[in-house]
């Protein structure tokens, strides 16, 4: 489903050329739960941006659901993101002073989904993340963990091909982080493809496959056995 072929990203800041990613290739199939791990500066954020069609690779191809999305115009990229990718950010990025329900409805608005359907789906996904009694709370009335659950519901709203989570537990307390991980596991069991970027081994250990990145290169791509997962529970 995801095919990354020899992707490089080079930033040109004046005289200095910084290589963020060099010649990365991998495939991710439908239903996988992948963690991309690496220390800061390893290029994992750049990779996440490219996988999220927020940025374009300098060279190489990124094929998502049989479509080459490596070189798109702004508006075409926006449409791909809307249809295929559910984002979950470290800082939640909910609209301030807006209700949970409206936040979840936002991507559906950009897809011109009729209002009744939007409300119905938003309710469904909020219920799925356990926030049925918080639907009309505004984002600043919710705890960090609750906000991240709203963000997950928003990520699910368009039933995307992949859920792309960038340090999803970086800004929340560990108990709530565990809740978020449980939701991810449940979603993966239901068949959702999840790609999670993190630098915390604890969090990465929830995934079934871990891709290690360092200095813009893949250093290890391993299947994660149940023993690791069992250890953390």
């Amino acid at each position, binding site marked *: 489903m995801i095919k990354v072929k020899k992707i490089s990203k080079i930033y040109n800041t004046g005289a200095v050329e910084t290589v963020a990613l060099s010649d990365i290739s991998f495939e991710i199939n439908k239903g996988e739960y992948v963690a991309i791990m690496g220390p800061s500066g390893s290029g994992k954020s750049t990779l996440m*941006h490219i996988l*999220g069609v*927020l*940025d374009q690779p300098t060279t190489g191809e990124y094929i998502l659901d049989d479509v080459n999305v490596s070189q798109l115009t*702004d*508006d075409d990229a*926006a*449409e791909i*993101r*809307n*249809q295929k990718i559910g*984002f979950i*950010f470290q800082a939640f*990025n909910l*609209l*301030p*002073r807006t209700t949970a329900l409206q936040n979840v409805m*936002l*991507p559906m*608005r*950009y*897809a*011109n989904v009729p*209002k009744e359907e939007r409300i119905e789906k938003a309710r469904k996904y909020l219920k799925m993340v356990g926030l049925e009694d918080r639907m009309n709370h505004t984002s600043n009335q919710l705890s960090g963990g609750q906000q991240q659950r709203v963000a997950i519901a*928003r990520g699910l709203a*368009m039933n995307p091909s992949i859920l792309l989570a960038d340090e999803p537990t970086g800004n929340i307390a560990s108990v709530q982080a565990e809740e978020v991980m449980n939701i991810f596991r449940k979603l993966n069991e239901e068949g959702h493809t999840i790609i999670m970027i993190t630098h915390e081994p604890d969090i990465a250990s929830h995934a079934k496959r871990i891709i290690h990145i360092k200095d813009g290169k893949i250093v290890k791509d391993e299947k994660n056995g149940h023993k690791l997962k069992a250890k953390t529970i």
Partner: protein
Amino acid sequence: MQDLIETFFESLGTLTLNKMRTGLAILGIVIGIGSVIALISLGQASQKSIENNIESLGSNLLTIQPSNQRSEGGVRGAFGGGTTLTLDDAKAIESTPKITTINKLSPELQRRSQITAGRNNTNTQVVGVYPAYADIRKVNLASGVFISQNDVDSMRKVAVLGPQVVSDLFGDNANPIGQMIRVGGQQLKVIGVTVAKGGSGFQNQDDIVYVPLLTAMKQLYGVSYLSSVAVEAKSADVMTDAQNEIGYFLLERHKISDATQADFSILSQSDILNTASQVTGTFTALLGGIAAISLLVGGIGIMNIMLVTVTERTREIGLRKALGAKRKTIITQFLIEAIILTFAGGIIGMIIGILISYILAQVMTLPFTISSSAILLAIGVSGAIGILFGWYPAQKASNLQPIEALRYE
């Protein structure tokens, strides 16, 4: 459309979050639109008032005034300052068979004088008149009688007062008939008071004293010329003919062969009306123009606020783009916010402008008019300002790259 309505309510919500800032942003437009409407209405009201005034002076009216002959350099003497128009001219115009298009005429001598009655005094217009004046200039009496031919011929020392003069000299609601007033060393007996015309503008017909023409010429001022002759044409259609007939007759009488050297001028009421309308029209445009500058400043204020908003909401814009908002969507959102601001400002400004012009009309006793064009202008212009000054910030917002924007602190 559905989407636009949703965006509208969403923007409304965003704008009400920061009421103070929204209010201040709107203020510039409120002042701009308000002053445009108030000043244009004021201009139109005074234009209308002047037109009414001139029309109330009498229709079918021509005014002959003396003017100094043009000198070689082409410099014309002061308006009405000449001494070349005489009572004999007036009498000749009235009696000559060469002029067939006029009904009657009124020779006049107008001067400003200090008038006293007892211990009160006032500086006012003194007009020496023939009885025909009342007819031609539409003067009606509230009490007493007007100047008669007999008064003129016998140079009687009598006067008819305008209501403003009565209240200045004798107090409000006083009956001055039979009382004496003093003009230029002569005692005059008051024989009548005119009806208030409520005049304002450039000639107040209530602040005036009428005396017999010969009394004015011989006894008060000692002059042998007239300041003007008012002529009533037989109808509005023959105004031009009357103007020509009188013109040629006077040129011949004054032995002037070149019409450009004429020592008099003949104005019709419509000439005066047109000139006055032009002058007030120019003033209205000028006032409106000055007000429009404040509108421009208001628009720049809106742009400034929108730019601040875009910077403040960089992360939000980044998020919206990440979730699939296209450039058009972002532009629409910010344009709608700007238009709501200017439109709200426009509506409030319009209400304030109408209130101000109503109050001004009351205070200055002008007719109160709201022109629909001013209202349409306010609505149209405020909407246009929203688009014009909201465009750049909206464009800027839509061009933000989502990753840069999401990273923005």
